[in-house]
Every structure is written in C-alpha cells, then in structure tokens.
C-alpha cells in the first residue's frame, strides 16, 4: 500500500480510479468460518429443541420446529450468499482529511469520519482473523465509531500508523500556528 500519494490522497488504491481500496479475498474465508461456527450453534439449539422440547411445547411442538427449520434454511442461504456480496461491495479510502467506508449487503452504508474528529485508533483481531492474518481497525470519535474490517495485519498496522501520524501532525501544526486559546475555552 502506497502511503505517499499525490493530491492529498493517502492510499494508492486497487479498488478503482476513485482511490477506494478493496478488501483481501481472505475476508470471505473469515466470514465463512465465522458463519459456520454461528450456524453450528443454531443447529445445536435446533437439535436440543427437537430432542427435549416436546413436553414444554406441547401441541405447538411441530409448528415451532417447522418454523425453526425454515428459519435455519433462510439463515443458511443468507450466510452462504453474504461473504461474496460483502467483499464485492466493501470499499474504503483514507485521505489526509477523512476516513471513508462504503459497505453493506442488504442495507448499504456510507460512513464519513473527518480525521480531525478522530480520538482513538484501535487494531483488533480475533482468533479466526489471527489465523488468516487479518485485523480490524476501529476509528473512534467523540460521537461514535467506524470500523474498517478484514484488513491484512500489515495493512491494518499501516492504516493505524497512518491515522495516528495524521492526527499527530495536525495537533503539532496547531501547536505551532495557533495563538493562545481564548479564555474559557479548552486547550488541546
């Protein structure tokens, strides 16, 4: 990932001419494993209900189990279809002034976080992502947070370093150029 691009853009990008970057294809594998674990839990609950819930559900036993099975089929289809669509739609862009993320499967979201508002940058990874060499970067502002999911670990570290660098430079420039804060107003 190039970190010194022209005209204020931080990423070179391989997601099209607009500077947006795409995720690594391994993100689909991570999602599939994640989904498989979740599905195994749902399946276990279904099997437990099927074995032990007859007395509790009484006359509704068949109805509830059929509804549960139907939900399991829908969930299976959804879980199988989501990763490729998520991968295909996911775009992110980090420039000198903003973090921009576009993602979504059924509902499409576009999140814009001004770098100026970023308070904290966090790189995190669970066991599955660690195994696949992926990590999430969470950008926290005073009003909420945005996450860039499934980045390669190196890239996640670079993104976090880049964001920290941008914030640090911004604060340094302020210290150099700004006059004393007006009375009664908070200093940074």
């Amino acid at each position, binding site marked *: 990932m190039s970190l010194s691009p022209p005209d204020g853009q931080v990423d070179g990008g391989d997601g099209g001419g607009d500077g947006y970057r795409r995720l690594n294809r391994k993100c689909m594998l991570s999602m599939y494993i994640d989904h498989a674990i979740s599905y195994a839990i749902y399946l276990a609950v279904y099997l437990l209900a099927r074995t032990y819930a007859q007395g509790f559900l009484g006359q509704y036993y068949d109805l509830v189990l059929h509804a549960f099975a139907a939900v399991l089929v829908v969930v299976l289809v959804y879980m199988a279809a989501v990763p490729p669509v998520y991968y295909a739609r996911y775009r992110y862009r980090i420039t000198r*002034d*903003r973090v921009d993320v576009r993602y*979504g499967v*059924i*509902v*499409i*979201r*576009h*999140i*814009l*976080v*001004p770098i*100026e*508002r970023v308070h904290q940058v966090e790189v995190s990874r669970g066991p599955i992502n660690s195994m696949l060499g992926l990590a999430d970067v969470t950008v926290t*502002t*005073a*009003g*909420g947070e*945005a996450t860039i999911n499934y980045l390669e670990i190196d890239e996640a570290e670079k993104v976090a370093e880049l964001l920290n660098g941008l914030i640090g430079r911004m604060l340094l420039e*302020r210290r150099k150029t*700004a006059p004393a*804060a*007006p*009375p*009664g*107003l*908070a*200093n*940074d």
Partner: protein
Amino acid sequence: MSGEKIRYHQSVIVEKSLSSLSAMVLLALVLATQLDRTAVAAILVAALAALLLFNYRQWRLTTVQFNETDVVVERDTLFKMKKTLPYSKIASVNVNRGILNRLFGTSKLQININSGSSATVPEAVLTFRQDTAERIRSVVSQRIYDREASPGEDEIAGSLVSFSPADVIIHGLFSVPTHQTVVASVFLAYSLFEQYLSVGPGLGTDGKALVSLMMFVLIQIGPSVSLIFHYYNYRIYRRGDTVYLQHGLVRTYRTSFNVSRINAVRIKSTFAARLMHRSCIEAEVVGLASGSGENLRPVLCLLKDDATVQKLLREVVPEFVYERSPEKQPESAKSVLLIRAATASLALAVAMTYPSLYVYRGAAALPGAAGAVLPYVLPLVTALAVFAIFYAAHVSYRITEFDAGKDLFTFVNGAVDRETVVMNYDKVQMVRITQGPVARIFGVSQGRVYLLSSTGGTSVSSGYFSGSLLGAVGETVMERIASGEYDYRKNCV
C-alpha cells in the same frame, strides 16, 4: 482557593452511610430467616458501626485542593486515588441540594469535564457548607467561563420568560413521549377490562388489574410527577456566553454551561402538546452529569406557546437560529414510507391474530353488551392501528424536512412527537448515509449524524432524501475544516 488541602463537610459520613442502609436492611431481612432477633440486631449494629467507621476514615483521608490551574481530589486510603481536573477541561460546575443537604446546610458541587466516555457521571462530587460551596463555585466558574458568578446572583437575576406552576404541571403531564402514554393507556385499559370481568359471578382478577394499574402509574403518572418536582420554580437566563438554569422542588438544581458547549438544540412537541400549540426546547450539552440517573439533557424552555419558545430561542441561543429554507422529501420517499407502513401493518396483523382469537374465545360467552362488543375489540384495535400506521407514514412524508444552512443544518422528524433538531456543522463527529433495499429502488437514502451529547454520543436521523443532498452535510464539515472556518479551540472535546 490558595492550594491548601481541604476536606468535605462531615455530613458526607452520614450521607454515604445512609445510602448503604437499604442494602443492610435487606441483609438483615435475609439473616432474620436464619438467625434469632438478637443475633440479627447485633450483626446490624456491628455492620452499621463498621460502615460509619469506614466512611469516617474515607472522609478523613480524602482531600480537595484548588490550585491555580487545576482541582486535585486525593484519597489516601488502601485504594489510593488522585484525580486532577484542569480548569481548561472542566465543562461545568453545578450545585445540587437534596433533602440531607438542606438538613445539614450543605451543597453538593458537581464538576464535569468534556468527556463523552464519562458523560453520565460527574468527575467529582464535593460536599461543602453552602456558603463555601457557593464561594468555590464562583471562583471555579470564573476560571472556566472567564467571569465570576457572584454568590447569590441566581436569586437576583430574573428568568427570561416566567414559568408559572401551571406551566410546570402542563410540562410534566404532556412532555412525556406519546408512545409512553399509549403503552400506559393500554395497561390502564387492560386493568379496567380485568376489573369489568371480575364483577361477573365467580370470576376473580388474580391481581392482574392491580398489576396493570401499577404499570400505568409507573409508566405515565410516575414520570409526570417526577418532571413536575424536577422543574418546579423553573428559571433560565443568560449572561455573556453562559446559560444558567435553576429549578427543583425537593432537590434543587443550579446548572450553568457555556454556549459553546451546546452541540445541538432540539425543539420538541408531543402530540398532546401540539394540540395545545406548545413546544419545549432541549439542548445537547456534554458535561452536565449529576450521577443520579436523571435526564441529563438540559431543558432550555418548558412546554410554552410556540411564539414564546421562538422568542426564548432567539434570546438564549441565537447561535442556533438562522433563516431556514427547508427541503421536503422527494415524491419517491412516499413510496418507501408506504412500503414500510405496509410491512409494519402486516407484522402487526400477524402478531395480533392469536391475542384476538384468545379474547374472542374468552369474551364471546359473556352476557349482554359485553358479549357483543368485547370479542371484536382487538380486531378493531388492530384495524385502527393499521390505519394509524398509514396515517403516520402520510404525515411523516408531509412534515419531514432537511435544511442545510451556511453554519447550521436542521432535521425535522416525527409524525407523532415532532422534533426539530438544529445542529452546527462544527459539532458533527461522523456522518453515515444508509440505503436499504426499498430505498435503493426509489433512489433515496437516510442520513445519520453522530454528535457528542449529554449522555456521551447520540445520533440524529434524517428522512428520505437523495444521497447527494445528505452527502452535502459531510462535505460541508470537511470544507469548513479545510478552509479554516472551523475553530477547533471552540469545538474541541
């Protein structure tokens, strides 16, 4: 204020011990089932003595130091604590007096900093004699607002608008959200229904009527009475850049904050309030926590007639007043709202099928008018609810607005309880634009703006507009940062 270490007023020992008393009584009740009365009494006395001793030690080893640049609260007990609060980071210093404070002639000073993570709890609660607390508040206010709040100035200053006890009662009764009133009414109706059934021969209510009635009191009457007590003797005024609020019947509140701390202003009117042509104003201000779990959003105006509300808005927060030219939702938004209403109606109809059958079976055997009417009550209510959902969709389409001004922008929302939220671009932390599957077909999106709020973080949603129109909010935020219009010193958190 010379940097010397001072202790809280001794009454905190009693106050803290009393707050733990309920837990001790509960413990005593549990023990009473296992031990005889003498043993329980002995344990209770020993526990109380230990508690008093513990709180005495806590009091003796806790000191406060008001230095030139900061306030330092230090506790030298087993679990040591040293908290430094720089004046430059303090958002507000407020006085709060409960019943015990009145008995002991003390006041609680609550110091809040500009933090989203601890927005609901004050950073420090310091109990001093009333005159000492006033003096400290005055000096700290001078440090944080650059003007001294002279002791007793709240008594001298008049409110910008007078609020009579009738206004307070109206606010208490009609500022409760309509959905809460509807839920409470359902409980009341169910209670009456159970009472009616119980008058029949051989039928009992099994306490259902009483439980429902209690739920009604808990959901509707309780909050109303609490609001009346909270806002009794309400006064508001502004001096320089500081807004002052004073209210309370049993517990009194004196709150002040700098106007630059306001992130957004909400003009709200519930359905009932709108029928009376009344609305109220609330502000999103970070750093006003009292730690008592009350609504932290300061009310700048109780429910008053719309003209008075506009007048007060111009006088108290002219920074949030501008010439608006609102955009209505596009025609395509109507289709999205109607599809949403149809989906909600379908879900409601499915959910009400079983209860309708249950009531039908239960009430069909009743003699007289009850047997003729009650079986059809739930289907009728469902039909009315479906009608209400479609009507709300229609109203929502009609009233939802978005307005992008130069420094401020506004979202108007709410088919039932209406809310106009005026926000400053410089206070926006994050923007999210969402497009669901139906909205995508019709080419509209919903925007969500994230701000720092009284409770940490909050978000305000827009109606359905074109993505480019909503995207302009984020772009304006970025432009203001890039062009230098945004002054971080006024807006940093």
